[in-house]
C-alpha cells in the first residue's frame, strides 16, 4: 500500500446555514489504517466524519466548500451517486441502532436494499460471514431469527457492525462506537476494530483518548472546527508539536 491515499480532504469548509462548523480542513486518510479523530465536544469531528459519506446532506442548509475525494473521485460532484457512495463508505453510530427486526434481517438489510443477491443460500452465507467478522456469530448463531432488540448493548452494536460489513464497504466510519457501552463490550469492539483494519479503512471519532491511542495508527486533533494536528498516533500522544494538542491530551482542558 505504501503511500497510497484512500480519502483525500483538501481545504474543506462546512456550514450549517450561516454557522461554519469546519474551517479549511485538509487531511489524507490511508487505506487499511485506523484513523482516530479526537477533540472536545462541538469541535467538528463528527461533522467531518459525516461529511465523508454525505450523511450531512439530510440536514437542511448544510453545505460543503472544498474537496473530498474517495479513491480520487470527488464525493461532492454532481455525478457522484450518493446511494453508491454510502454503500462503499459504511457507518457505525454512537448509539447502537439495530432495526426492530430479527438479527438475520438486520444483517441482510443492506444486501437486500442494494439488490446484491436474490439467492437465499448466498444471503445466508453473507449473514454468517458478516456476523463472524463482527465476532458475534458464536454468541447468537442459534437465535438468528430473534429480534435484535433482545440483545445486550454491546451485542447490538456488533449487529450494527455486521450489518455495515454485509454490503462490503471499503471504508468504515465509526462515530464514538463504544461510548455507550460497558468496559467489557468496549474492549470487544476495540479488538474488532483491530481485526477489521486488515480489510477496511477505518475512521473513528472518539472522546476517549486511551481508546484512540490503543486502536489507531494515525490521529487527528480537532478544535473549534480546525484540524489542529494530524500525525502518527504514537507521535501525537508522546510528542505533540502543537501547544493546544498537548494541553488537550494531558487533560488540561476539554
Amino acid at each position, binding site marked *: 500500500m505504501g503511500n497510497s491515499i484512500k480519502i483525500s480532504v483538501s481545504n474543506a469548509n462546512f456550514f450549517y446555514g450561516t454557522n461554519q462548523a469546519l474551517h479549511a480542513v485538509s487531511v489524507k486518510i490511508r487505506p487499511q489504517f485506523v484513523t482516530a479523530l479526537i477533540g472536545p465536544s462541538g469541535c467538528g469531528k463528527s461533522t467531518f466524519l459525516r461529511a465523508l*459519506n454525505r*450523511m450531512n446532506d*439530510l440536514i*437542511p442548509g448544510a453545505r460543503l466548500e472544498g474537496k473530498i475525494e474517495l479513491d480520487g473521485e470527488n464525493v461532492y460532484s454532481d455525478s457522484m451517486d450518493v*446511494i*453508491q457512495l*454510502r*454503500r462503499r463508505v*459504511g*457507518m457505525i*453510530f454512537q*448509539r447502537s*441502532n*439495530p*432495526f*426492530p427486526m430479527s438479527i438475520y434481517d438486520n444483517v441482510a*438489510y*443492506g444486501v437486500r*436494499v*442494494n439488490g446484491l443477491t436474490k439467492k437465499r443460500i448466498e444471503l445466508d452465507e453473507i449473514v454468517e460471514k458478516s456476523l463472524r467478522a463482527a465476532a458475534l456469530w458464536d454468541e447468537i448463531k442459534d437465535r438468528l431469527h430473534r*429480534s435484535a*432488540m433482545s440483545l445486550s448493548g454491546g451485542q447490538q452494536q456488533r449487529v*450494527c457492525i455486521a*450489518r*455495515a460489513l454485509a*454490503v462490503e464497504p471499503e471504508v468504515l466510519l465509526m462515530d464514538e462506537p463504544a461510548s455507550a457501552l460497558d468496559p467489557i463490550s468496549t474492549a470487544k469492539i476495540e479488538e474488532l476494530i483491530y481485526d477489521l483494519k486488515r480489510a477496511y479503512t477505518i475512521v473513528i471519532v472518539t472522546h476517549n483518548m486511551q481508546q484512540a491511542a490503543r486502536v489507531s495508527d494515525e490521529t487527528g486533533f480537532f478544535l473549534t472546527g480546525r484540524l489542529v494536528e494530524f500525525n502518527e498516533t504514537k507521535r501525537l500522544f508522546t510528542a505533540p508539536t502543537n501547544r493546544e494538542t498537548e494541553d488537550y491530551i494531558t487533560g488540561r482542558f476539554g
Partner: protein
Amino acid sequence: MRKFVDRTFVVLSLSATVIILSMLFLIIGNIAYHGTERLSWEFITSNPENGMTAGGIFPAIYGTVLLVLLMSLAAVPFGVLVAIYFAEYASAESRLYRWTRMAVNNLAGVPSIVFGLFGLGFFIQSIGKAIDQTFYPGRLLYAQPSILWAAMTMAVLTLPVVIITVEETLRAVPREYREASLALGATRLQTVFRVVLPQAWSGVMTGAILAISRGAGEVAPVLFTGAAYFLPRYPSHPVDQFMHLGYHIWVLTTQSTNVEATKPLLYSTVFVLLVLTFLLNITAILIRNRMRKWATR
C-alpha cells in the same frame, strides 16, 4: 381562607366530572334500556316493513358497514401517502408544507354538511358526470348519488384525522433508524417502506380507528351523496344507493306516520348504531394490537 378555596376547587372539579359521567350513563342507560326491549335477531336481520313502522334494519346495518369499509379503503392509503410526504419529504420550513399543513388542519374543522354538498358538487356532478359522458354516453350511472361517492365524500371528511395521526407517528420514529438505513445505501423510498412505515403501523391503525369512529356516526356527508330513504335491495355495485343507520334514525324520527309504533324501533336502531360503532372500533383496535405484537416480535 386559602384552604377553603383549595377545597372548593376540588369539589367543583369533582362535581363537574360527576355531572359529565352521569349524563353519559343517562344517555347510554336510556338507550340500552329502551333499545333492547324490541331488539331481536329478527330485527337485526330483516327489512323494514309497513312504512318503517315494523320489521328490521338489516339493509341499514349492511349499508353502514359497507360504507365505512369503502371509506377506510380510500382514506387510509391516501392519508398515509400524504403523511409520508409531510413527515419524510417536505421540508418543515417550506411554504408548500406550511400551507398544505394549514389546509389539512382547516379541513378538519369544516362542518360535515359542507362535505356533503362538496361531495354532491365535486364527485357526482363533476367527476361522475365526466365518467358517464366519457364511458357510458347517454346513460346515468356515476352522475347520481351512490355508495361509491358517499364513501369518497366520507373519506375526504376523515382524511385530516388520518393524515395528522400518521404524520405524528412517522415523526416519532427515531432519526437513528433512517440514518442507519441510508448509511447502508438504501434509497429514501426503501427507508420509508422498509424501516419507517413498519414501525408506524400502529399509528396507521389508530388513524383508521379515528376515521371509522368519525365516519360511522356522521350522517350529513351521505345525505346528498348516496343514502336512500328506503331500499328493499342491498347495494351490489358501486353506483347503487344504500341505507344508512344514522340516516335511518333521522327518517324514523321525523318522517314516521305513526310515532308510537316507530318509537321502539327508533330506540333499537340507535342502540344498534352505538354497538356497531363500538364493534368496528374494537375490531380495528384488535388488528392494531396484533400488528404491534407482530412488529416487535
